C-alpha cells in the first residue's frame, strides 16, 4: 500500500484537507510532515499543499523553496515519484525550478475565490490517470497570484510535449494559454492552481476533486 506525505510549511492551510481527502475519503495512509524534516524515506508520493507559506513574503513560494524538506522532495522528483503542488505548492515547485514558469498577480488584481470549470487536456498523468481528455471538472480556485506566465519558447515546449494538463474553460485570472496545471518533462511532477482538496464530497458543492485524488492514488500504485 502506498504512503502519502503532505509537507507542512509555516502558513500552509490546506494540509488537513489533502490528508482528509486521501486518508478519510479514499482510505490511503497519509502523514503530515513538517518542513524542517530532511527525509521522506518510505513515502511513495508527496503533496505540497495550498496556503501562504512564510506569509507569501518576497514572492509566493520563494522562501519555502529553501526549507530543508525541499531536498527530499527534489530527490523524489528525480526518482520519478509523484510530486504534486496544489496552489501555493505549485508556486513553490516553480520557485524551486521543478516546474516552469511563474505566477503573476491575477489580471483582475483581486483574490479570486470561486468555482471554475477545468478542462482535462491529457489522461495519463498523476492527477488525471482516471480521467478522460476533454472531461470538464468543477473545482474551486482561491488565489491572488495564479496568472500563469512563461516566455513563448517555454509555452511552446509545454504545448508540443503535451505538458499542459488542465486549462480554465473561462480564463478568470489572465493565465497564458488558460493554463491551470502542468506536468514536468518526465511527467511525475505536477502543479495545479485550483483546489481538488476543497471539493471531494458532494456536500462541498461537487466531488470532482475526489476524481483528481483517485487519479493520484491509481497512478502512484501503478508506478510505485
Amino acid at each position, binding site marked *: 500500500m502506498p504512503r502519502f506525505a503532505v509537507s507542512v510549511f509555516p502558513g500552509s492551510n490546506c494540509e488537513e484537507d489533502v490528508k482528509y481527502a486521501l486518508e478519510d475519503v479514499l482510505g490511503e495512509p497519509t502523514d503530515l510532515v513538517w518542513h524542517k524534516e530532511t527525509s521522506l524515506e518510505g513515502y511513495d508520493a508527496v503533496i505540497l499543499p495550498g496556503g501562504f507559506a512564510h506569509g507569501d513574503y*518576497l*514572492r509566493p513560494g*520563494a522562501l519555502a523553496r*529553501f526549507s530543508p524538506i525541499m531536498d527530499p522532495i527534489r530527490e523524489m522528483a528525480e526518482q520519478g515519484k509523484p510530486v504534486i503542488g496544489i496552489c501555493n505548492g505549485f508556486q513553490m515547485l*516553480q*520557485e524551486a525550478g521543478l516546474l*516552469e*514558469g*511563474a505566477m*503573476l*498577480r491575477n*489580471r483582475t*488584481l483581486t483574490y479570486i475565490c470561486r468555482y471554475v470549470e477545468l478542462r482535462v487536456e491529457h489522461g495519463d498523468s498523476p492527477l488525471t490517470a482516471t480521467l478522460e481528455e476533454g472531461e470538464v471538472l468543477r473545482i474551486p480556485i482561491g488565489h491572488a497570484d495564479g496568472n500563469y*506566465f*512563461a*516566455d513563448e519558447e517555454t509555452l511552446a515546449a509545454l504545448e508540443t510535449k503535451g505538458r499542459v494538463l488542465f486549462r480554465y474553460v473561462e480564463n478568470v485570472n*489572465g493565465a497564458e494559454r488558460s493554463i491551470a496545471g502542468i506536468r514536468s518533462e518526465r511527467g511525475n511532477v505536477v502543479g495545479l492552481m485550483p483546489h481538488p482538496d476543497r471539493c471531494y464530497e458532494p456536500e462541498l458543492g461537487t466531488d470532482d476533486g475526489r476524481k483528481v485524488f483517485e487519479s493520484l492514488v491509481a497512478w502512484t500504485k501503478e508506478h510505485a
Partner: protein
Amino acid sequence: MKANVIVRLKEAVHDPQGETIGNVLKQVGYGSVAAVRQGKFFELTLEASSKEEALRLAREIASRVLSNPVLEVFEVEVKE
C-alpha cells in the same frame, strides 16, 4: 556596508499593478505620466571586507533569492 537591490519586472512581463497606479495618476491630474512600472527595493546591511566582496555577495543574493529570473531583473549598488 550597505547594498541596495532593485528588482523590477522584465519589459515583456505585463504589470497590472503599475498600470493601475498609472491610471490613478492620470485621474488625479498627472496627465504627463506616460507609464508606471512597479518594482521592489531591498536594503542589505552586510559584513564585507571590501566593496567588491559586498557587491559580489549582494549580486549572489539578488540572483538566488530576491529575484525570480522568469519574471524579473535586478540592479545592485553598494554604499560604503
